[in-house]
């Protein structure tokens, strides 16, 4: 990251090689549209190029920091489609699968395992809406519509869930 902040293109290329498939996956999961995901991914690496000096290794790993940028950009693009974009996923009307996949199970060590363990302390419904929000980048409104639940209820599930999550992670 220091080399990228110093303007070394080769360092950015190496970061791209190491992280682009993961970050493209993150963008594609939120946007579904491949063209848009490609567009956003370009923007993500330009953002990394310009903001590398703000990276703080003490706060987040490189993959965590870059994937947060990718999510943020992809959600910006999703919002540009309109407030209820993705209120109804094309495939089905269910919430995101609550069970982590095989790849995830292999990676459960470390930070991810700790986060999953804390998510597991939440009730299933709260865990599901938080996971759906994370993976699909949808709004409170869209979550309320999908779960056929009043907006205020969904907000309070998520706020209380996040508060408990923080408590668990800090315990």
């Amino acid at each position, binding site marked *: 990251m220091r080399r990228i902040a110093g303007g070394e293109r080769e360092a950015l290329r190496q970061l791209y090689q190491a992280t682009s*498939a993961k970050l493209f996956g993150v963008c594609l*999961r939120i946007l579904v549209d491949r063209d848009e995901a490609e*567009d*956003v991914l*370009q*923007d993500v690496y*330009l953002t990394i190029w310009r903001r590398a000096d703000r990276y703080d290794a003490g706060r987040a790993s490189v993959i965590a920091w870059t994937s947060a940028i990718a999510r943020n950009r992809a*959600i*910006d693009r999703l*919002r540009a489609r309109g407030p209820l974009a993705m209120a109804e996923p094309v495939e089905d009307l269910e919430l995101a699968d609550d069970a982590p996949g095989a790849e995830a199970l292999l990676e459960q060590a470390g930070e991810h395992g700790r986060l999953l363990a804390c998510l597991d302390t939440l009730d299933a419904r709260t865990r599901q809406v938080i996971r759906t929000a994370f993976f699909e980048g949808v709004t409170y409104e869209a979550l309320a519509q999908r779960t056929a639940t009043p907006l205020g209820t969904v907000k309070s599930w998520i706020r209380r869930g996040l508060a408990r999550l923080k408590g668990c992670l800090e315990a």
Partner: protein
Amino acid sequence: MSQGHELSPIEALAAEHALGVLTGPERAQAEARMASDPAFAVLVEDWRARLAPLAAEVASVEPPARLWPSIERSLPANDNGAVLRRLRFWRSATVGSLGVAAASLAAVVFLAAQPPRIVERAAPAAPMLNASLMGGAAQPMFVAAYDPMRKMLLVTSLVPPGADPGHAHQLWVVTADGRSHSLGMVQPGASKVMPMPEPMAPMMAEGSALMVSVEPPSGSPMPHPTGPVAAKGMLTRI
């Protein structure tokens, strides 16, 4: 720690922004606050860091090989002028993505190989809309661009020519109320410019979706799709 533990209103906002559940205008406000309120920015960054490990569950997908050269070409020289960097950052966040969108539209127009008048005309004053209609395999099967100035929709089928000769691909616009309206047929592999007469033109708006259904060769016998939906995509401003 305890069940009664609550986030302060400001931290709740930071957490919601990091999770990504805010609407577009709320996000813009939160970003502006991050720029002017370092304490809030730290809260957001902390929440991003807390949630980020979940990304480990997202399947990696290789981006196309052409993407890196394109990123490399668009890199400006890094420098230490914080003000310049900020300016560039904002410019790239807007103009940069516009440029890419315009480039992809140019590709659509090129691909269409339609009469050259389309390519030669000056850029329209009203924003163009475009849509990539994705099929089941998350691959675009049709691309469309709508010019609100001329009320023309350009549609290109990326389906191989001659595919599925027993059926037709019918294009629909799905308006915000969920109703579909037929726009006509699109031949596999072909491009088509469709004038949008008055009842249709207002439907060509952000938030409408374009959809292609598989129908009998003569088209759907009903005023709505009767066959399976092959591809769908939202109209978005570029």
